[in-house]
């Protein structure tokens, strides 16, 4: 494991400027594999989703999956790319047992989609990430390394391979180098990953389950001294498989490279592995030794030539993209950029939208999700969507507050009850007796008691110090265990004390 020195992030950013690059692999959600009819479902027993084509048995020939071609073009269109009028698959040759063919069918100098962009929002600013290319290839098999001290490939005695994943359609999305991110590099990398995932979800082309590897990132980072215009040597951290790890790997790599460069050392172009437990990277194989893939046009497949009219119809049928949806909702809800960004970061936009759809005013829906519920989710260490409460239930609570049956304090107790599994909002209100006290007789009795117990405060109010009534209202609220209507209590108190505002 790493014993390398790191430079504190702030110091690293004072001395160096980072340049980022991100390659993202997305497994498409097709029913069958890229070049054969084997199923793509996750988690099957090993080597049960394999056939002569994806096992590369002699004589077997690939045929491209029409749905995968279509999905890739839709991804390209959603990322504002140009779609090639004619392009080919290419054969990427390498010796490694994760592909039984000894090559991977990919695309090389003729990607299906190129030159696009994706806008992401960080710190209230829009950052445009330029997309170099989007191409289609096939995923590889899964190796398990046996023996050795670490369970990793280095030092393993041998490996065992499951080819269920080999041949699943895989889209690779490559950004152009991203300079000028400055100290926001880790956040921008994460925001890009988040936005890309939402685009994939919106298109319905992948389940984008990062924990199952259906979306994973290779993170390129280089540093150059402040004031320099010549980019430094980059490293590539492979297979980073959570958004949080994307952010951490960029930060960790900046801190590591800065320490080496500041100490007079140099960065070697290499692939690195990210370690979840420490947030650091360690060296993988050196890039120089493995770069000669001898790409050539794949002779077993004919060129792809998407019909222009068909591509135009796919573009016209794209669903509303996440950024456009956010803009629309922001306008409908009338909230500030900052509030919208906060909801976006908390993954609350869909929940607020559903709550509004269930009848709640947008301001109330946002207040509960971003206030009380965000606090509880944070305490429990779970995302908002995993709280045991539904948008419909929040809308019901909002309606009860609006109708005067609950005040905010009682509403919080109702939410607590629902989160505790005590039932629906109405059931919690009934079971806990949380109805606001609207009965004037009961309220008057409480007020009389409070006035008797707080004679000094009452005299102050009588003598004209109206501000002192606050303490008395507080007493009424306390005596009613929060169930009194504070506004009405204040009116009645002033009336009884014979003063008016």
């Amino acid at each position, binding site marked *: 494991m790493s014993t390398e020195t790191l430079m504190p992030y702030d110091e690293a950013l004072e001395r160096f400027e980072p340049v980022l690059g991100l390659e993202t692999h997305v497994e498409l959600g097709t029913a069958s594999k890229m070049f054969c009819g084997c199923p793509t479902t996750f988690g099957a027993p090993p*080597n049960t989703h*394999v056939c002569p084509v994806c096992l590369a048995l002699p004589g077997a020939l690939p*045929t*491209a999956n029409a749905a995968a071609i279509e999905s890739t073009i839709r991804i390209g269109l959603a990322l504002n790319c140009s779609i090639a009028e004619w392009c080919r698959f290419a054969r990427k040759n390498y*010796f490694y047992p994760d592909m039984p063919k000894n090559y991977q069918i990919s695309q090389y100098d003729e990607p299906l989609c190129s030159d696009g962009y994706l806008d992401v929002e960080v710190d209230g600013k829009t950052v445009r990430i330029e997309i170099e290319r989007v191409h289609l290839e096939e995923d590889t098999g899964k190796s398990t390394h046996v023996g050795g001290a670490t369970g990793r490939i280095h030092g*393993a005695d041998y*490996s065992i391979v499951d*080819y269920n994943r080999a041949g699943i359609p895989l889209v690779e999305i490559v950004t152009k180098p991203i300079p000028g991110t400055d100290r926001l590099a880790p956040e921008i990398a994460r925001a890009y990953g988040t936005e890309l995932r939402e685009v994939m979800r919106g298109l319905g082309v992948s389940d984008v389950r990062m924990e199952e590897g259906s979306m994973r990132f290779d993170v390129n980072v280089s540093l150059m001294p402040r004031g320099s215009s010549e980019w430094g040597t980059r490293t590539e951290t492979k297979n980073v498989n959570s958004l949080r790890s994307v952010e951490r790997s960029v930060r960790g790599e900046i801190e590591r490279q800065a320490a080496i460069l500041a100490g007079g050392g140099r960065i070697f172009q290499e692939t690195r592995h990210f370690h979840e437990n420490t947030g650091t990277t360690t060296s993988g194989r050196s890039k120089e030794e493995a770069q000669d893939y001898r790409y050539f046009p794949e002779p077993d497949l*004919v060129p792809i030539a998407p019909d222009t009219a068909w591509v135009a119809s796919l573009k016209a049928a794209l669903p509303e993209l996440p950024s456009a949806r956010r803009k629309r909702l922001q306008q409908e809800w009338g909230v500030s950029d900052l509030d919208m960004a906060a909801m976006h970061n908390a993954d609350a936009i869909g929940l607020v939208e559903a709550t509004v759809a269930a009848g709640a005013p947008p301001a109330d829906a946002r207040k509960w999700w971003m206030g009380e519920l965000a606090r509880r989710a944070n305490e429990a260490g779970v995302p908002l969507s995993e709280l045991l409460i539904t948008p419909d239930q929040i809308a019901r609570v909002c309606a009860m507050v609006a109708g005067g049956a609950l005040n905010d304090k009682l509403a919080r107790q109702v939410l607590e009850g629902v989160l505790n599994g005590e039932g629906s909002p109405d059931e919690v209100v009934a079971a806990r007796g949380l109805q606001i006290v609207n009965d004037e007789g009961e309220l008057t009795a409480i007020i009389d008691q409070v006035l008797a117990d707080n004679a000094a405060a009452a005299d102050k109010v009588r003598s004209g110090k109206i501000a002192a009534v606050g303490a008395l209202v507080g007493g009424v609220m306390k005596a009613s265990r929060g169930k009194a209507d504070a506004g009405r209590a204040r009116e009645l108190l002033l009336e009884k004390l014979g003063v008016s505002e």
Partner: protein
Amino acid sequence: MSAITRDEVAHLARLSRLALADEELDHFAAQLDVIIGAVARVAEVAADDIPPSSHALPLTNVYRPDEVRPSLTPDQALSGAPAVEDGRFRVPRILGEEA
């Protein structure tokens, strides 16, 4: 006049995982040179109006519908494997201790 060098043959041999003796490098360099020369003659007859191609048939857009077909059974799939462990293909050590 393309001349394949000994170093180029050695590089190709390494990429292809072929262990070639020194005298074989010279031998194959000469042979590859002849092959490249023969293929290069195609360029002499290819006029500007003949687009380069990578497939024998002038076809595009040959696809299959996204439909699942039966896979092999694990026994069938593994029947040709030299070694099997835990339902998986067992392969020799991939990388050494270095790096």
